[in-house]
């Protein structure tokens, strides 16, 4: 693929706007809260889009098209079974505690509800995770640009890091959030034409159904046994693993996304952030998954389009999206699409860096290194951490070029980190008997259970370093079951230990636990500003989608 000069003009125009937004926002920053938490003043439509944009990095964008080609419409479960119910739960039940507790981060909530060691465990593991995630995202960007456009890996990585650093350093979280929204709009405008063109060419949905085996075009009908569907998962693993533990864990406890909702300007807006976010989120599969399925169909239609192959043979699903762009996009729109891809890589990185600097500044530096300094000092620390975060990400990206397999492994591990954490939050927020010792032992042993399960089972030739006790039919199945095991371990251990340790008094936990917190009832607000009617609309739409593609 080769870009024309008009494509470069569009690319340059986008980066000019991105940097311009950072430059204009720099004046709004006068405290560490402005820099790290947007001063809790971002309008709700922006936090809602940022909430879902933070998860729409290019790794997801390419991965969803790849999964579409590999697993068919079942991939939509990541949205229709996983993300949407989790986002509703987050907005309705969990946000009152996050926003109401006045905690500045997820680890800080753990400190308020439980104790210092639980916070430390979460803060450190989260900090490490964000750096590696952002490094892996940069590595993927460099690799993709090299593969598709022949650009130099070093230039791609360093230039994108410099741009991310510039706008996050200038405008902090607000700048990252604003640019995530711009990137989200660009993704939608830049990839919707691809979805429309490729699905039309493949004969529309009916044509695709006719040309593919039925288990690729039905999301629910073939889930009775793992051998019947392309994902190799049975209904329990899917619903409990993906639908409950993994999705709820990600959307309800990952500070990267929670931080976006916490930047909203009021409790009511913070609760509506994930709820409003579900509306565009629900329809994203049509833009990000459909092209992948269409690519598979097109490759069977003798149109001159062959499905991309790996050098070693076998289909290269990760290239489904970019090869399709080359087939349908002329110079101009191709520039918009490539800009969208690059933008999503960078906003993924910016998201990680802005979450990292908040957790480091408040939960590590202010808590353990230098407490009690004037706020100006923490603003400086926040800025320095931003630079350090970007530099560490670059280091992680280069580490990934050397130790490819370790990165694969890390991604697997990160996939399970939020599973036990969700059990901790569920107990912490809804069962006031949960004690700090219970939470900490559950969390550490739950995480350990995840790592142990990963290293004693295999799937598609991965995992099983200690022993091979069980072989899963697919990596998806392995992932879902690790999550279920980690979650259950954390739940059981936390409950057991809590029963034998002394709980805190009710007075200490006001605003932190269900039953001791005044949940707001926006009875006077207009109907579309209240959580309940919004939720009903979302649930109805969700049911229609699930039944339609059953």
């Amino acid at each position, binding site marked *: 693929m080769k870009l*024309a000069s*008009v494509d470069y*003009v*569009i690319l340059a*125009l*986008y980066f000019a*706007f991105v940097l*311009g*937004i950072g430059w*204009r*926002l720099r004046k709004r920053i006068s405290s560490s809260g402005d820099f790290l938490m947007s001063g809790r003043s971002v309008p709700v439509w*922006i936090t809602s889009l940022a909430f879902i944009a933070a998860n729409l990095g290019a790794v997801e964008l390419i991965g969803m098209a790849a999964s579409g080609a590999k697993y068919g419409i079942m991939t939509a479960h990541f949205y229709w079974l996983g993300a949407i119910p989790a986002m509703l739960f987050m907005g309705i039940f969990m946000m009152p505690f996050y926003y109401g507790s006045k905690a500045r981060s997820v680890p800080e909530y753990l400190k308020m509800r439980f104790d210092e060691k639980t916070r430390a465990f979460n803060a450190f593991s989260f900090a490490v995770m964000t750096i590696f995630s952002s490094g892996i995202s940069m590595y993927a960007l460099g690799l993709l640009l090299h593969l598709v456009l022949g650009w130099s890996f070093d230039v791609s990585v360093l230039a994108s890091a410099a741009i991310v650093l510039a706008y996050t350093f200038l405008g902090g979280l607000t700048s990252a959030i*604003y640019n995530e*929204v*711009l990137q989200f*709009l660009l993704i939608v*405008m830049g990839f919707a*034409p691809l979805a429309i*063109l490729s699905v039309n*060419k493949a004969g529309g949905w009916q044509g695709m159904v006719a040309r593919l085996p039925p288990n690729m075009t039905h999301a629910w009908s073939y889930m009775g046994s793992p051998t019947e569907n392309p994902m190799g998962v049975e209904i329990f693993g899917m619903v409990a693993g993906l639908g409950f533990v993994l999705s709820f864990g990600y959307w309800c406890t990952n500070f990267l996304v929670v931080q976006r909702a916490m930047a909203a300007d009021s409790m009511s807006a913070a609760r509506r952030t994930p709820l409003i976010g579900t509306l565009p989120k629900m329809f994203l599969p049509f833009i990000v998954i459909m092209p992948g399925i269409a690519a598979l169909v*097109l490759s069977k239609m003798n*149109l*001159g*389009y062959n499905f991309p192959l790996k050098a070693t043979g076998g289909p290269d699903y990760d290239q489904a999206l970019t090869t399709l762009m*080359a*087939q*349908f*996009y*002329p*110079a*101009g*729109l*191709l520039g*918009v699409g490539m800009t969208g891809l690059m933008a999503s890589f960078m906003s993924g990185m910016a998201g990680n860096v802005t979450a990292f600097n908040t957790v480091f500044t408040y939960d590590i530096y202010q808590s353990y290194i230098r407490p009690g300094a004037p706020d100006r000092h923490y603003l400086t620390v926040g800025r320095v951490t931003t630079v350090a975060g970007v530099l560490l990400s670059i280091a992680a990206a280069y580490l990934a070029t050397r130790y490819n397999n370790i990165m694969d492994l890390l991604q697997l591990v990160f996939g399970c980190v939020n599973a036990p954490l969700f059990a901790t939050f569920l107990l912490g927020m809804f069962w006031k008997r949960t004690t700090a010792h219970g939470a900490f032992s559950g969390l550490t042993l739950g995480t350990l259970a995840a790592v142990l399960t990963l290293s004693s089972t295999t799937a598609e030739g991965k995992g099983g370093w200690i022993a091979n006790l069980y072989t899963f039919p697919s990596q998806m199945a392995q992932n879902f079951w690790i999550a279920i095991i980690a979650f259950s371990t954390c739940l059981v251990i936390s409950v057991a230990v809590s029963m034998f340790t002394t709980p805190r008094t009710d007075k200490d936990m006001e605003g932190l636990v269900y039953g001791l917190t005044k949940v707001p009832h926006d009875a006077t607000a207009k109907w579309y500003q209240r959580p309940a009617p919004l939720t009903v609309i979302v649930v109805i739409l969700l049911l229609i989608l699930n039944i339609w593609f059953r």
Partner: protein
Amino acid sequence: MDLRVPSGWFFTLVGLILIGMGVFAPHMGAAPLTTDNVNLYSGACMLVFGLFLLLMAWRAARQEKGSIP
């Protein structure tokens, strides 16, 4: 800063560039699997979207001005 302003300008400009490509160079770098003037249609959509964002921002700014006597 109202985010609708820079986003609106961005999509307006990109829309105009794509429409320009669609009108003046419809065959440049044409894509193998389609004969449609993809640039023209997508550009028109982006232009409309960009102008819509600018209109919304302009209305919001005017209302805000009106509410402060």
